[in-house]
């Protein structure tokens, strides 16, 4: 690639990118190819489309994009037909491919019904919209719902995930075609470092990794810190189970992170940056590595960027599977090649960080917001969201909810809107019980608080936290004691062991919760858990230990009755804890199909074909296999 070191060269690249995004003479096909899309079968669909194009010599531009967001509808395939609305098809399977291509070419959608159509594409960096449609929408397509009419999309505003599912993440020109690197040009040629920091402060942007510390002020402290060598780090060690928005950005739009980092480095005065990526994200590592190489050959990294005299470079470092490395000081230790143990924070990393030099660390989503803030101005950004939490937040909406996927919404959107409108409510006629936010450091928000607007302070007040944005929906068949046990067990495995309150605290908490779930809870356990929580919060060295009791405290705060049912009545109201439940066959529903008998690993299910089955309680190990396979709901939990 030739150097892009002038505005003219940037415009030229943008034009090429736009031609790829809106081809004039052929149909562009986008297929979401994020890690989870591939697991849902998108690679096979991609291959089937590629084969069809080859054998029939079709004129298509077949493109792999990142995550399109709505994972439960994967594989998702989009068609951008010149001058016509963009058509999106959900749950595409290999056998449908020939008919699908045929019908899209002829715009005669007999059997294949699009999920939605889009008439224009918004560019959040410029605020402009580009029309897909020239003239009128063809009548055959006018009855297809518009993207904005689908409840899942209606309330979303995409800033951090602006390019995910839109561009080919391996194509730099497409990123530039969507306005990419123009903010960097503006920052380096028109703004002083102080102006940039002022703008980021004005935007009200707060760290999206969990802490919610104001980003601009962090940059200010690092800029003001003494020392000529400074570093910026991108924390891509997204470890909260159930949160994968950072992976989607790294996989689907790696240049947005890189551009944000270059702008930040210029503002702070750093010449070297690091991206620390979680080991379990091979595709993210691959796409980031490629993007860094592209940025180098284009001249966005290296010496004298855009002729400004500013030099900056980025290295990518892979984590090695330690949750605690999401904590900033542990991450820095890991970058230095040591075991990832945190240190006490009486010295701030903005003054003494990597190699004891001033270091500014932000997470993936924070960095990817930066170019938009520079392009549109801090004031514009602060107009989105709430007074204390500006902008948007990407949530991964998972668990017992109909629409599973990523949702980027303005701060201040209520949990009810997220779960019921974007998420489409709870499946299988069950009822909403709680939503867990903030990962293992967070807590559960009960139904009584469903109108809570999401924001850093609102979630804190409710006993949970924003965290990295995992949102796990739970229904009436989720046991809250079991959930607390799950998170504490996770932390017991991940505690680095350096300080006693965390190391021993989480293990003892786990033991107590295991006892309660096993029907061996005792009077006084609840009080003991609360006492231990206080000690851990006061005495732990880092945030992992300090916030470890949150899952226990928040479930105790809203669901103490469930703990009491376990301890006093030896009963698990949700029917989850194995020692406290029994499986029984309902005689008038059982057809004697023997399916459950075959699957039972301990031969506890008895009964001949076409006779009502029975479960021998002395042999049953409560593995649920029979309950899962029964097609007649003839097995119940008591």
């Amino acid at each position, binding site marked *: 690639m030739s150097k892009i070191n002038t505005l003219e060269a940037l415009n030229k690249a943008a034009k090429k990118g736009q031609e790829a995004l809106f081809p004039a003479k052929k149909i562009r096909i986008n297929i979401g190819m994020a890690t989870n899309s591939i*697991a849902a079968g998108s690679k096979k669909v991609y291959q089937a489309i590629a084969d069809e194009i080859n054998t029939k010599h079709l004129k298509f531009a077949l493109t792999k994009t990142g995550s399109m967001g709505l994972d439960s509808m994967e594989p998702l395939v989009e068609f951008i037909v010149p001058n016509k609305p963009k058509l999106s098809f959900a749950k595409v399977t290999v056998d449908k491919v020939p008919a699908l291509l045929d019908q899209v070419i002829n715009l005669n959608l007999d059997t294949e019904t699009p999920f939605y159509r889009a008439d224009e594409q918004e560019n959040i960096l410029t605020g402009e919209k580009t029309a897909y449609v020239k003239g009128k929408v063809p009548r055959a397509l006018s009855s297809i719902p518009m993207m904005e009419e689908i409840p899942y999309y209606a309330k979303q505003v995409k800033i951090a995930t602006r390019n995910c599912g839109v561009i080919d993440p391996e194509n730099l020109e497409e990123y530039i075609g969507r306005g990419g690197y123009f903010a960097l040009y503006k920052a380096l040629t028109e703004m002083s470092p102080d102006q940039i920091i002022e703008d980021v402060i004005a935007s009200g942007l707060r760290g999206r990794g969990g802490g919610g510390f104001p980003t601009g002020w962090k940059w200010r402290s690092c800029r003001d810190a003494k020392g000529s060598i400074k570093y910026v780090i991108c924390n891509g060690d997204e470890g909260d189970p159930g*949160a994968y928005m950072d992976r989607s950005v790294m996989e689907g739009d790696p240049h947005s992170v890189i551009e944000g980092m270059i702008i930040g480095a210029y503002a702070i005065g750093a010449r070297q940056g690091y991206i620390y990526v979680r080991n*379990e994200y091979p595709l993210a590592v691959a796409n980031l590595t490629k993007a860094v190489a592209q940025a180098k050959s284009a001249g966005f990294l290296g010496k004298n960027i855009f002729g400004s005299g500013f030099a900056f470079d980025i290295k990518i470092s892979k984590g090695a599977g330690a949750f605690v490395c999401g904590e900033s000081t542990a991450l820095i230790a890991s970058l230095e090649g040591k075991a990832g143990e945190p240190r006490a924070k009486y010295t701030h990393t903005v003054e003494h960080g990597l190699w004891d030099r001033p270091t500014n660390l932000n997470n993936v989503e924070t960095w990817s917001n930066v170019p938009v803030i520079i392009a549109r101005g801090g004031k514009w950004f602060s107009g989105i969201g709430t007074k204390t939490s500006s902008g948007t937040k990407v949530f991964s909406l*998972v668990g017992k909810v109909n629409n599973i996927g990523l949702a980027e919404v303005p701060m201040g959107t209520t949990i009810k809107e997220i779960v019921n409108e974007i998420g489409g409510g709870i499946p299988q006629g069950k009822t909403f019980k709680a939503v867990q936010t903030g990962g293992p450091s967070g807590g559960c928000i009960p139904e009584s608080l469903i109108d809570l607007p999401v924001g850093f302070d609102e979630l804190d007040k409710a006993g949970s936290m924003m965290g990295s944005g995992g949102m796990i929906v739970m229904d009436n068949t989720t046991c809250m004691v079991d959930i607390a046990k799950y998170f504490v067990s996770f932390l017991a495995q991940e505690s680095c062991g350096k300080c006693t309150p965390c190391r021993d605290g989480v293990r003892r908490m786990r033991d107590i919760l295991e006892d309660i779930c096993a029907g061996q809870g005792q009077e006084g356990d609840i009080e003991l858990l609360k006492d231990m929580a206080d000690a851990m919060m006061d005495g732990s060295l880092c945030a992992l230990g300090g916030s470890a009791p949150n899952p226990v405290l928040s479930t105790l705060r809203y669901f103490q009755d469930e703990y009491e049912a376990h301890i006093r009545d030896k009963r698990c109201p949700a029917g989850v804890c194995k020692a406290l439940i029994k499986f029984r066959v309902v005689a008038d529903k059982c057809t004697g199909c023997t399916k459950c008998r075959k699957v039972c*690993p301990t031969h506890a299910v008895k009964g001949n074909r076409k006779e009502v089955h029975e479960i021998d309680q002395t042999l049953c190990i409560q593995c649920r296999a029979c309950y*899962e396979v029964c097609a007649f709901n003839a097995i119940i939990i008591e």
Partner: protein
Amino acid sequence: MNSENEVQAKVKEIVDRYAGDKSALIAILQDVQDEYRYLPKEALVSIQQQMNIPLSRVYEVATFYDAFSLKPRGRFVVEVCTGTACHVQGGINLLETLERDLHIKCGETTEDGDFSLERVGCLGCCSLAPVIRVEEDVHPYLTQDEIPRILRTYMAKKHGRKRE
């Protein structure tokens, strides 16, 4: 088994990639593990000698991070996702079924060296929960009764037979 000389030569090649950078220890261990699928003792000793880092520190890092294994792993590594979404959908039952069917505990390898059973934090395939991953394949929406069939697929693969 890998001869000591062979391991030393391989480790030297890997260490040289990082031009003596001591902070690259984790990356070097990752490369060694990519080569052998675990960290052989001889390799750790060799890293100590070539990088001039105390063996205790090499061992500390190798045992601190979950991604490293000091024991040889099986031909197929079965990873059970224990992320929150998989947990609320009953993922733990899959782990217990696998333990019963493979006659090993989580973290162990079968005697014939075919399968290792491990748990993994979150694969980020929450829309497909509960899932397990074997090699590159993520198996979605799993129920316990599907486990034997999946294990048979990999056994067939080992014997070079194609079978769905």
